């Protein structure tokens, strides 16, 4: 009896493990959704791989938003997510950036051959960083990847790429467009043609063992709403 009243009083808490690049957008959505649903949102942010591993080890998560399909596939294969709830909620582009301080003049894909003149190129490790994987595909389709091997600095995440470019230690780098927009010290020289790499999508799904299934599904629905999509766009995400 006593227990019940307690449960009613306590607001439900929805734990959302989300790719770290979505941090700012999610923070902006948080109060809106919380108000509509009388729920508290808790974000657990990190690299998609780390988040997936936490889920594999039984971390109490309700919703997972990954920055790539691979980890979502693994979780789906292990039946840790509800397959029917899986949706691609947004997307991103690969941006080619340089420091504002340099006067590099690669303004378009056609001038990419000038990359030969730069010394160091920062890119996410393609084996672990989705943005790196897409960059690899992009450069491979231009037949540049192998040629540039010796100049590549592999970073553990997109943020590290940004840091290298911001501090001038790498001349140029490849990051998500959304990441590039968080920094006011880099220029986006151009964005990669989306046809030259796999589509960059952010799949989301409700966990199999969630205790708040309805709320979780509401949250996924909310992510697809115009309001949420506008917020995502303002941070550089595009479906």
């Amino acid at each position: 009896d006593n227990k019940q009243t307690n449960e009613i009083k306590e607001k439900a808490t929805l734990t959302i493990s989300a790719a770290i690049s979505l941090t700012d957008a999610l923070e902006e959505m948080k109060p809106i959704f919380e108000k509509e649903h009388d729920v508290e949102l808790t974000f657990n942010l990190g690299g998609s791989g780390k988040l997936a591993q936490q889920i594999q080890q039984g971390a109490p998560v309700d919703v997972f938003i990954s920055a790539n399909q691979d980890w979502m596939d693994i979780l789906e294969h292990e039946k840790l997510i509800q397959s029917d709830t899986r949706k691609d909620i947004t997307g991103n582009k690969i941006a080619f950036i340089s420091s504002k301080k340099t006067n590099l003049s690669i303004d378009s894909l056609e001038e990419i051959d000038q990359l030969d003149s730069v010394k160091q190129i920062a890119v996410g490790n393609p084996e672990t960083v989705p943005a790196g994987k897409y960059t690899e595909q992009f450069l491979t389709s231009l037949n540049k990847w192998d040629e540039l091997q010796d100049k590549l600095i592999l970073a553990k995440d997109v943020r590290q790429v940004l840091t290298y470019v911001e501090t001038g230690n790498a001349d140029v780098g490849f990051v998500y467009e959304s990441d590039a927009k968080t920094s006011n010290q880099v220029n986006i020289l151009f964005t990669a043609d989306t046809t030259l790499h796999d589509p960059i999508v952010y799949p989301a799904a409700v966990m199999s063992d969630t205790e708040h299934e309805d709320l979780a599904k509401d949250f996924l629905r909310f992510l697809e709403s115009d309001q949420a999509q506008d917020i995502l766009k303002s941070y550089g995400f595009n479906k």
Partner: protein
Amino acid sequence: MDEMNLSPLWLSFKTAIIATIIVFIVAVFLARVLSRRSFPGKSVIEAIFLLPLVLPPTVVGFGLLILFGKNGPIGKVLIEWFNIQIVFSWYAVIIAAIVVSFPLMYQSASAAFQGYDAHLEYAAYTMGASKWRVFWTISFPLAWPGLLAGLVLTFARALGEFGATLMLAGYIPGITDTIPLAIYFAVESGNMKMATFWVIIIVVLGFSAILWLNWWSKRHMMDHSNNKKA
């Protein structure tokens, strides 16, 4: 920086202190028990204690996640018997801090207990003092300089712990967001002002704690050595 949430400060402070106390007690006890003993395999045990230092914190975190996760051998028991969920909770933050700082305290304490003249303990025994009393009144104060060094290292390491915490405790604002995690996420989201703010806070916090510890030690534990040169 508009809406400054100070919870990481309090959380980090609380965590570092509690972890330091627990590590201190356990490591000093183990070091004392093992320091004057020699048996085959002792070196191996001591090397195992150093594991969390050799492995990158993320890997330590991964190991802890496997142990304390819902399906892990320890995590399972804790949930079934006590309904305590470790992952993503404050317990996880504490556990991570304890595990990574333990080797520092153990090594320091172990050296400290070898450093003084065992004869003095015998002298205390002849005066009828119990083992417990001899430990507290003779061994402990004589080993103190080394123990203090270990304490300082332990506190600093617990305060700065990041990799294992992130893995085991996740980054959950208000619950597991210690200062190092706050710095990391501020950097990740490009908020350099926020990052700098937290770096300053953690440095000030670490410094004050360490300076206080040194001051306290000089006052209460080492007054005899101050007099030495008088």
